[in-house]
């Protein structure tokens, strides 16, 4: 069981929250210019990071507000909690020994690049299943 610190309510049990998937997936600037593959990648393709991962959470049985969390997918350590819309606070005291896919995704919010950044990088990073957990 994780104890998650909601920015509004403080520390609460994981069961009060709902997971909202990867954070910082920017909506394409010009959706009409995407081909089917790019649109499918925006909708469905997500990173499968081993290590620090930026994700969205909803405090569903508490204040019903969304927030972002930086969580290590291996150790479950919660490294940072920050508001929706804020950039990913990398190096919250530590530099993450990560493949770099998540930080590429984080850039997409600020640069607002039309093509989702997940496509190429996620495939290469997820084919390293050594010790991978669910």
């Amino acid at each position, binding site marked *: 069981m994780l104890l998650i610190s909601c920015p*509004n*309510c403080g520390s*609460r*049990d994981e*069961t*009060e929250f709902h997971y909202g998937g990867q954070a910082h997936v920017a909506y394409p600037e010009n959706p009409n210019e995407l081909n089917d593959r790019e649109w499918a990648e925006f909708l469905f393709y997500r990173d499968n990071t081993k290590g620090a991962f930026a994700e969205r959470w909803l405090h569903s049985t*508490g204040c019903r*507000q969304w927030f972002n969390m930086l969580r290590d997918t291996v150790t479950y350590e919660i490294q940072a909690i920050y508001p929706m819309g804020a950039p990913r606070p990398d190096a919250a005291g530590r530099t993450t020994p990560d493949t770099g896919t998540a930080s590429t995704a984080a850039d997409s919010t600020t640069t607002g690049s039309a093509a989702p950044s997940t496509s190429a990088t996620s495939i290469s990073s997820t084919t390293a299943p050594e010790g991978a957990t669910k």
Partner: protein
Amino acid sequence: MAETAAPETKKNLSLRTSPAALLRAAFESGSVRGTVELSEITFLTMVGLRVGRDTEAGQRVASVTGGLPATCGTVSGAGDTSVLWLGPEEFLVVAPLEAHESLGGDLIQALREALADGEGQVVDLSANRTTFELTGPRSRAVLEKGCSLDLHPREFKAGTALSTEIGNIPVVLWKTGDESYRIFPRASFAEFLGRWLLDAMREYASPEVP
């Protein structure tokens, strides 16, 4: 959403059935006098409020309710009207039965007029939830069987209300006194939660095993 506004024809309010009415006898016999007691408080007036505290509309609404709580857990209000914090811009107003417009009360209308065309919502939620009252020195022990909050009085003080889960049911839990709690489950969960609480209370009817 139940239509609770008074229609042209006069309603016979004595025909109303509260969500946990069928458990009334069970609550009576399952309560352990002086140890832990459970009852349903029926048909309280409840109003869902969505408005920013810092907006002009928020200040107008606050003048009707006697303030809006600023942070998680806090309860404000005046007289017999209380305002519970549910979210940064979401509140639950709890008032006695008579405050409802079907009985001639003007609370909801006053809130609507205060909000006026400001950004927000005033919604009559009186039929959304019912109210359980759990009292007695063992009430905290009963709640702790199915609630993950820290209910120790050092953390959870009288006059605090938090939305959380009890027995996996989403509720608002309001500590009204040192040994008394009000629990607001949605109507459709009332029977389950009532039976869950009765089950959790049962051991205190027997002598303590040394």
